């Protein structure tokens, strides 16, 4: 087994030719997303080049402070991304989402690195890539869960009002909706677990094999990361919604939001 072959800059540029194919297809299909595709490709390139340099520096000069700073930046960025989609949500709910997301992700990361791999948390080679996978997937799960939860609240307002009027405690009305949202959040992870190895080779395993790791070792990492992601998504979403729903009613068992979750004043 040998490490991944180096890609020369000129050969690397050949891959951008494939984008031209996409652009031609978009034009032909009259999809007005050319600008978005170009911006997305440029952003991806710039972000990855930057992160490539930073990671190279951190791996060559490992220091716990660098690892901690990198992980903190990832947490802040992903929490910001999650919350930026939930503009109208009340402030306490947002704090709960941020806290649940960060604590669950970091706890699962710590368990993976310390207990399963037996490595130090300060070791950037393990901690940073695994944090990226765990936090990135938790972010997708959290976004899905919150979208599903808000959508249920909007579409089931009539049912919620009927139950409230009948004397059902608000927590008993909201908890099933939170359960439904958790189910939605877990679907992509569960689906990819089912297809893994047969329909597609997952990214982490492919990367390891490309860099010369034995496939038998790569699968152990892959299985571990999938279970870790599943646990991180469940924990983050469960904690965020179970604690978050408590911000949606007051001490008088009244809902504190209007026709949808983002409107605060009931009318």
């Amino acid at each position: 087994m040998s490490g991944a072959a180096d890609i020369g800059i000129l050969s690397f540029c050949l891959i951008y030719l494939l984008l031209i194919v996409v652009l031609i297809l978009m034009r032909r299909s009259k999809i007005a997303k050319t600008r978005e595709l170009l911006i997305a490709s440029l952003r991806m390139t710039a972000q990855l080049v930057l992160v490539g340099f930073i990671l190279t520096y951190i791996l060559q000069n490992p220091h716990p402070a660098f690892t901690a700073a990198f992980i903190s930046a990832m947490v802040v960025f992903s929490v910001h991304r999650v919350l930026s989609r939930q503009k109208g949500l009340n402030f306490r709910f947002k704090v709960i989402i941020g806290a649940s997301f960060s604590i669950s992700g970091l706890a699962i990361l710590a368990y993976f690195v310390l207990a399963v791999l037996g490595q130090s948390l300060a070791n950037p080679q393990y901690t940073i890539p695994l944090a990226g996978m765990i936090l990135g997937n938790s972010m997708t799960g959290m976004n899905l869960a919150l979208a599903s939860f808000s959508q249920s609240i909007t579409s089931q307002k009539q049912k919620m009002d009927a139950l409230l009027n009948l004397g059902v405690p608000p927590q008993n009305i909201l908890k099933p909706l939170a359960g439904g949202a958790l189910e939605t959040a877990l679907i992509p992870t569960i689906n990819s677990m089912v297809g893994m190895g047969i329909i597609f080779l997952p990214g982490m395993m492919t990367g390891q094999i490309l860099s010369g790791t034995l496939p038998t070792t790569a699968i152990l990492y892959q299985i571990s990361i999938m279970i870790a992601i599943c646990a991180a998504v469940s924990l983050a979403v469960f904690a965020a919604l179970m604690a978050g729903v408590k911000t949606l009613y007051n001490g008088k068992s009244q809902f504190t939001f209007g026709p949808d979750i983002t409107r605060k004043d009931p009318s």
Partner: protein
Amino acid sequence: MEPLFKTEDLVFGGFLKYADLSFPAGKITFITGESGSGKSTLFKILNGTLSPSKGRAYYRGRDIEALDAIALRREVSLVSQEPFLFDGAVRENFDAYYAYREQSPPTDADIKKLLSSFLLDFGTDAPTRTFSGGEKQRLYIAVFLSFQPRVLLLDEPTSALDAATGASVLSAIIKSCRENGTEVVVVSHSVQMAEQFAQNTLHLRKEAAL
């Protein structure tokens, strides 16, 4: 005798101001008034799902704001204008509502009896999605009444029906409530309905914004 409900200087949200109201116990009260006069909001204040921004509302002499909200709503249940039914059959609706209230549901025989008193000639296995608007509304009210609240607040209970059917349905509902010992307060925009059934009528006026 203590009135069933009483309000004092009630204001909601800075845009609804109510004249002081008193609902006698043991009489069927109708609340009428143009749209925007705050009829539905008043109902929500009376069963504690909304709080007034100023003033007080009393249920049998007790300040509603100071009562346990869940216990109050089980005693004073509000049947909103838009019925909500779960997917599935009549039986499943009773099961679902009773599961939310954490109570054991009534037997098929009890449900059947209740349905016929509401002029609903269906079996408990009838799927509710085939019901007409009026039938859905009646089943919805029947579910609420089956919990035997002390007071039922009915918001436009016959809005999905024509005048003649509305009158016979409301008469059946009032009869069932009487048999249960449940007090009835009705919000209705129909003057004829109020003239026919009300023993006490309160007319709400749109007060000028504060």
